[in-house]
């Protein structure tokens, strides 16, 4: 692993429920480089959102438990940091967040301006400067940055927008605001949890383009979770595929689509609707995470599965530089 910005190792997370304990993340490994846009794809319930929230330390405290693993970021293990330091030093400062549904992420009873002003009060990069300006001067400088960034995310009339309440602006505008708020603190990493799922298809593409462009300009890494392979193709440098709480393949975007090595990735790509094949699903069902299959969790649905797959989880093996797969019987170009 070369100079990762953030490295997740052997992360295991379980959720308590009435039916039993669900092993939602099962030894996940994942490294994100500085400035890279990383897609995290998989079906609903595969653990994308859990991984994203585990990195931020915002898993529900009463239901979720971290059983093992490390999240190394800036030379420290985030899982060891106490809550108050995470809130003050990491969240919204070095790692920012773009939520799935921008219409419920804003507080409905405060103006957008109030919410951004509070964000800047705690997370403004000016506060970290060598000689931070104080009081009024800083607030004015912060406001100028806010207005500038709102212009950059193509929001019309930013000054008026700040005086509005969240329900007075459109869904697309709210998500542009969320992108702006994520970038205002000048973080190193933005975690975007299905940021376009709640939006109209026509708006989705614009938002993705904007996110990619701004992240590139600022050299901000993005962890972009999605179940939309098309969206991942649009903006990602590399893609990590997750299945039932295990990461199964990690590849640069071109290799991911051209030379998938894991049978699940192959099936995922095959399930994309096309003119020739129409709609095709993946036979079988996602396993119950309360009593998951041993070994590779995909083995009950995989025609290549052997006894080894049912006992041992495959280790990560390189396919080519930057391309890793966890499969005992991986696909080669000929078998694909």
């Amino acid at each position, binding site marked *: 692993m070369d100079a990762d910005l953030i490295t997740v190792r052997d992360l295991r997370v379980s959720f308590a429920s009435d039916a039993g304990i669900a092993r939602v993340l099962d030894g996940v490994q994942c490294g994100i480089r500085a400035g890279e846009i990383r897609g995290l794809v998989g079906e609903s319930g595969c653990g994308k959102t859990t991984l994203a929230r585990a990195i931020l330390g915002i898993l529900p405290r009463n239901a979720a438990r971290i059983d093992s693993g490390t999240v190394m970021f800036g030379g420290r293990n985030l899982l060891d940091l106490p809550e*108050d330091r995470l*809130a003050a030093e990491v969240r919204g400062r070095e790692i920012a967040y773009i939520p799935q549904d921008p219409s*419920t992420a*804003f507080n409905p*009873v405060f103006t957008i301006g109030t919410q951004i002003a509070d964000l800047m009060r705690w997370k403004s990069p000016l506060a970290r400067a060598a000689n931070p300006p104080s009081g009024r001067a800083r607030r004015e400088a912060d406001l100028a940055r806010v207005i500038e960034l709102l212009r950059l995310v193509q929001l019309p009339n930013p000054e008026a927008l700040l005086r509005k309440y969240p329900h007075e602006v459109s869904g697309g505008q709210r998500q542009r605001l969320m992108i702006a708020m994520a970038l205002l603190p000048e973080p190193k990493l933005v975690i975007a949890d299905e940021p376009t799922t709640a939006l109209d298809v026509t708006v989705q593409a614009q938002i993705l383009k904007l996110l990619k462009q701004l992240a590139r300009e600022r050299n901000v890494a993005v962890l972009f979770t999605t179940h939309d392979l098309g969206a991942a193709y649009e903006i990602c440098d590399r893609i990590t595929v997750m299945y039932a709480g295990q990461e199964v393949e990690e590849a640069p975007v071109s290799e991911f689509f051209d030379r998938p090595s894991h049978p699940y990735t192959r099936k995922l790509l095959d399930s994309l609707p096309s003119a020739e094949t129409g709609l095709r699903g993946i036979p079988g069902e996602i396993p119950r995470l309360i009593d998951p299959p041993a070994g590779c969790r995909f083995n009950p649905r995989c025609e290549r599965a052997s006894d080894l797959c049912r006992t041992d989880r495959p280790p990560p093996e390189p396919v080519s530089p930057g391309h890793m797969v966890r499969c005992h019987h991986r696909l080669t170009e000929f078998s694909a």
Partner: protein
Amino acid sequence: MRILVLVVNRMVWFIPTLLGLLAIVFFISHVIPADPAAFAAGENASAATIAEMRQRLGLDQPMHIQFLRYVMSIFTGDMGNSIYTGRPVVEDLLSRLPATLELTLVTVVVSTLVGVPLGVIAALRRNSWVDHALRLITIAGLAIASFWFAILLQLLFSMRLGWTPLTGRVEGWGPEPITGFYLIDSLINQDMTTLVDALHHLVLPVATLAVPAAATIVRFTRAGVLNALESSYVLYETAMGYPRWQIVWKYVLRNALIGTVTQIGLIFGILLAGAVVVEAVFDWPGLGMFAVNSILNSDYNAVMGFTLIAGTMFIVVNLLVDILQGLIDPRETR
């Protein structure tokens, strides 16, 4: 300014609501089997005197004429004379209104200041011993009968410990009446002795009324805060590293208060009604005592006057609640 639209909209409903209220009370009070004419004429009056009295009071007219006359006079500010005291009902009511309002307002302020923070703490410490203790106390507070609790307080704090006065609003005469609110009047007169004395007299009646009121506010605030804590915006604010205290005491609380404000409005109305009992126990010269006496004396005009003023206050409080909610929750007004 949609808030203005809201206010005007409410105002339009003010009159019909009042008329409905008046009609109900008027007809109910007339089916009660008691003859106010006989009562007004005196114990040993002859049939002729009673008939004359009935005519003088307009009680011989058909029901709807009586009601129309009453409504007409209300709109000219005349609620008639009390059959019992012989004085204009308006004067009787207005002289007693401040005592009840003072008691009620102080109770609402005290129970809000106590109930809201406790409700937030119960929600934050959900299922801890603090939460369980508060649950026990609030349920007990709601279940306790106020007259019994009032007497208990009197026995302990007035009779045994001697810390508080037993009854009344002040020792001897009240301050020079300006507003009728003793706290305000003594402040205007810069009469600190009376102010302290009035506060002293308020302690037990306010405590009696505030216990169930604060209990309600704790329950509703707790529920509202818990609801808000599970929302997406709290997840977002946490993920972006807003400090916990700001999330709770600013972002969550304001959302939670939308429900609590409605409840405080209802409490205000319940307090006006509940004051009847508490005023009787503490010999508080307010509307409650007046209402009880008027009912016992079959004093139609006074009962209807009380109902009118209580209903009006209820409607005004509801209007204020609506406006307050519009101010707290911008989705209502913008």
